[in-house]
């Protein structure tokens, strides 16, 4: 692996390898001394043009626990805010001989573009409304920890699909692992061309969340409704959204009744009371904090395979 830009770049074997490595890395988190020498002497830049707490921290901790030198650069607004092109910005960083650039940017495709301009490995930590591949890996890891193999498992992804990079990467990775994926959203929050896309990729589409829950899926992944979408004409009111697409207390009961083993995921941050009720967020079935914990292990695995490969054992 040279870069991790899209979940589509990962074969089933790649995903299996990364998740297996993540399981080893997860053990490190439970040690008193959480430090491996694996990436000593390597330099990782976390280049975050968009606000992020959990993803940036997760990458930073992952790097530090493997002894890499990690540097965080944050930038409000786009790279053009000071008149510099994105290419100039990243080439400046690349000229400092860094080994890896972890980039989050508000523009779709930015990680892909950056990978063509720099010598360093590039990890896509979220590019606009395109993809967030490490989130998909950590979601798969977390679900497998609870459910076992995802082969043949049924996963529902619910909410603002149009603007969700988490959905895009998850749909790909879950299908790569053999899961059945059902997408649930109001028509206004379904991505363009989703009908053809879903048919090509073997995804199911519906706007009936209650029917999906009644069918007893193994996992339900709730997507965050971004506050700026609430006034964008995508749905009439937050109340109406919750009635149609929120994982309310009643729907939690329905899910549990249909499948007592079902789990609930959310990439965070959660809008309690909007897309997910407090009952659901804090339920025993909720994997929200497990996802956060797994995030570090998965990112350690990704950095390991990008920067150490087979040369250095974890």
């Amino acid at each position: 692996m040279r870069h991790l830009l899209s979940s589509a770049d990962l074969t089933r074997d790649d995903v299996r390898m990364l998740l297996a490595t993540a399981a080893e890395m997860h053990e490190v988190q439970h040690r008193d001394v959480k430090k491996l020498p694996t990436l000593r002497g390597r330099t990782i830049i976390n280049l975050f043009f968009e606000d992020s707490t959990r993803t940036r921290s997760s990458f930073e901790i992952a790097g530090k626990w493997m002894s890499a030198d990690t540097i965080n650069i944050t930038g409000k607004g786009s790279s053009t805010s000071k008149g510099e092109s994105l290419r100039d910005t990243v080439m400046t960083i690349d000229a400092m001989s860094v080994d890896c650039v972890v980039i989050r940017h508000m523009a779709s495709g930015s990680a892909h573009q950056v990978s063509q301009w720099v010598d360093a490995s590039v990890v896509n930590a979220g590019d606009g409304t395109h993809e967030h591949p490490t989130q998909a890996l950590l979601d798969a890891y977390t679900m497998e920890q609870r459910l076992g193999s995802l082969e043949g498992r049924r996963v529902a992804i619910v909410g603002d699909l149009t603007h969700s990079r988490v959905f895009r990467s998850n749909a790909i990775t879950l299908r790569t692992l053999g899961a059945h994926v059902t997408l649930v959203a109001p028509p206004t929050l379904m991505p363009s061309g989703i009908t053809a896309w879903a048919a090509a990729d073997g995804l199911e589409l519906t706007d009936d969340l209650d029917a999906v829950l009644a069918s007893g899926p193994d996992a339900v992944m709730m997507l965050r409704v971004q506050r700026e979408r609430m006034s964008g004409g995508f749905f009439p009111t937050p109340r109406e959204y919750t009635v149609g697409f929120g994982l309310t207390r009643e729907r939690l009961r329905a899910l549990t009744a249909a499948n007592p083993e079902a789990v609930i995921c959310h990439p965070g941050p959660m809008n309690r009371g909007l897309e997910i009720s407090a009952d659901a967020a804090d339920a025993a079935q909720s994997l929200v904090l497990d996802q956060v914990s797994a995030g570090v292990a998965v990112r350690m695995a990704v950095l390991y395979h990008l920067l150490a490969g087979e040369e250095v054992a974890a």
Partner: protein
Amino acid sequence: MSDLLIRGADVLGEGTAHVLVVDGRIAAVGAAAAADAPSGVERLDADGLTLLPGFVDLHTHLREPGREDAETIASGSRAAAVGGYTAVLAMANTSPVTDTAEAAERILDLGRAAGLVDVVPIGAVTKGLEGHELAELGLMHRSRARVSVFSDDGHCVADGRVMRRALEYVRAFGGVVSQHSQDPALAGPQACCHEGELSGRLGLPGWPPVAEASIIARDAMLARHTRSRVHVAHVSTAEGLDVVRWAKAQGIAMTAEVAPHHLALGTELLSGYDPVYKVNPPLRPTEDQEALRAGLADGSIDAVATDHAPHARHDKEHAFVDAAFGMLGLETAFSVVHDLMVRTGRMSMADLARVMSTGPAAVAGLTGHGRPIAAGEPATLVLVDPTAPVTVDRATSQSLSRNTPWHGARLTGAVHTTILRGAVTAREGEPTAC
């Protein structure tokens, strides 16, 4: 201006013939031309070449004033001459905007100083392209520049009341409004990818075809209501073309142009997020490309227009949604259209002359361009080689910018010589002087 004898060209409508040019005009066509040629006249051996009226581009961005690092009127003129153009209409979205008589005259004068093509300024429809108040349309028309085409290109005149008034106003002097048909409420400010499966997968803001078709439909009704002329700039969708056809069938004075890139390049090229393929309107899927090709061949579309949009490298080296819209077009338009439409048998060379010369000249009201190749007519001509292979190399572009999507492309059909009122302005890829 030297006299010229073009020997043995394939002359549209005449077959192989000689053409004698004297004092900037065609003096004779046919066998008599050689006989009448004065001794010592410059002779141009045109064996295997086709002689057409010089090309006219209804849609050129020359960037001067304001962004002379990307293009100047002189460099754009060189690119145009090399591309076989004898007239280009310079879009108004410069900085400052061409929204006054003085601004229009300055562009006219700079074009004359460059001296390679007729640079015809397009006037803004609204002050500052802001879409609210009409620019000084009448004064621009009464100026030395004789502005007859008005456009806020880059922006749509979205306010129906403003568009109505513009159409009413220009009717008085036979002007035309060239509309960038894009409903800004339907295709938002960041829209940069045809709305469809690919935009959904790539996470790029979608630009739906209905945003084009709905404005064309509204403008058709306004043109009918005002009994004025409206021109559809860079039509890009089958839906938009359907409306154009309907309007023409109703007798509405609507014309339309298509850009070579919308004929030849598809949405799928955006999958690599390369901003060289970022244009507005965006590249469309195969079905739209096919519809546009058919519309061009059957005459529903009146003109090929380049939408030549040079950009400095740093304006393209941003994330895709932040990068500038536009690509070069002047130097490659003939080769692309010839390769795609004529070489494949979809159009004849006469059709090509219609859409690249006579059609656009008629839309713009340019009486000295797009003329028949006949005695007494201006010698404003282009010689093309239909069989010449062309490999596009951006390094050799006459433009100051390099944002061509055709770099490395192999096409068939090259511009050989461009002649403006008897003067050779470009020969085999090189402008004669500037």
